[in-house]
């Protein structure tokens, strides 16, 4: 479990009626588009934000900042090399 990929929300549709016209997000990535259900999203995304999609549902809404923060944490994990003054090949 659980194949899921991030895609950008380009439009929010529906929402007029929970039954006949539930709110859905239209997501897009590299020209591929899909309608995604929002019943289990932690919060309703705004257009321009990203959602992680699993089985046709958004399971999480995130911003580019959320992603970049995660990335910066990873960079910092690996940068210990420099901060400890270690150079490649040096004896620990």
């Amino acid at each position, binding site marked *: *479990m*659980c*194949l899921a990929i991030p895609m950008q929300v380009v439009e929010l549709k529906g929402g007029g009626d929970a039954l006949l016209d539930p709110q859905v997000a239209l997501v*897009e990535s*590299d*020209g*591929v*588009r*899909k309608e995604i259900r929002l019943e289990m999203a932690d919060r309703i995304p705004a257009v321009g934000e990203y959602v992680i999609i699993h089985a046709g549902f958004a399971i999480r809404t995130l911003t580019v900042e959320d992603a970049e923060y995660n990335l910066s944490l990873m960079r910092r994990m690996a940068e210990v090399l420099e901060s400890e003054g270690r150079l490649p090949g040096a004896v620990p």
Partner: protein
Amino acid sequence: MKTESIISLDHGSGGLASQKLIGGLFLKYLTCPQLRDLEDCAMLGEYAGRIAFSTDSYVVDPLFFPGGDIGSLAVHGTINDLAMRGARPLALSLALIIEEGFSFASLERIIASVAKASEAAGVAIVTGDTKVVPKGKADGLFVNTTGIGLASHRHDISVKKAQPGDAVILSGTLADHGITIMSCQAGIDLGGDIESDTQPLHQLVGALLEEDAGLVHVLRDPTRGGLATTLCEIAQSSGVDIVIEEDRLPIRPSVSTACEMIGLDPLYLANEGKCIIICDQDGAEDILQLVRRMPEGRDAALIGWVHEGQDGRVSLTTRIGGSRLLEPLTGQPLPRIC
């Protein structure tokens, strides 16, 4: 003439209804004189060189998809099989098995597509056959095309001929056809960018062999099973190892995204208008440029090399520098959620 809306068993019986179908539909679009003669077989004339012969049947579902249909696929597929041994396609046959009740309009659309593909490729349908089977005995329509070609060069281009040191070139982007078919079934909107890559490759191959025939060792189109399976076949047959690099694989971003969405690996999806060219490393750069100059090969890329080895191992150097063994596909590629 009364317009039919569906195909009935009568259309396959050889009687009046059959003749109306042939005359009113097939010959309306397929204009080769030999076909019009309606003889029991076509006589092709005398040729010097080695005769190449190939057959393929087409059962694709859906019948119509972005970029093509079962008709154009059937024409291109058999032309390409001939081209992969360096043969110039001379003529094609077309055989149909139609399920009773099949839409006449769909059949007409497919025959028109066959005619268009055949004309554009310059390879005529010279003989054909039609059968109609009772409802339930065929899935709509099955098509077979068989092709005859001529190899006038002396070089033996074969799956057994890859040599250590050879370069591996892929003539264009990966997985376009396979993902188009799977996306149709998944209900994913392709946004107009993804479509089947079905196209004939005989002109590309012809140009290649005119320039550099001696340098080309293997030609193979990675259809069912995809690039990975086809490379495994080559490696096994030639008794070599092959290493390709993920960074070098040409793939459209939209195709890559669609694969990720449905959980499919592009290395195992079908390509219907691409070929693998394995050639001497000395000529590789020139061959790559030649292929890129042709419209069929504009996205060609050098994707890897052939190495010494006996086990027929194919491996992929991943984007992050890791190594992954590629095995042949067993069974159909299936989408996954887990």
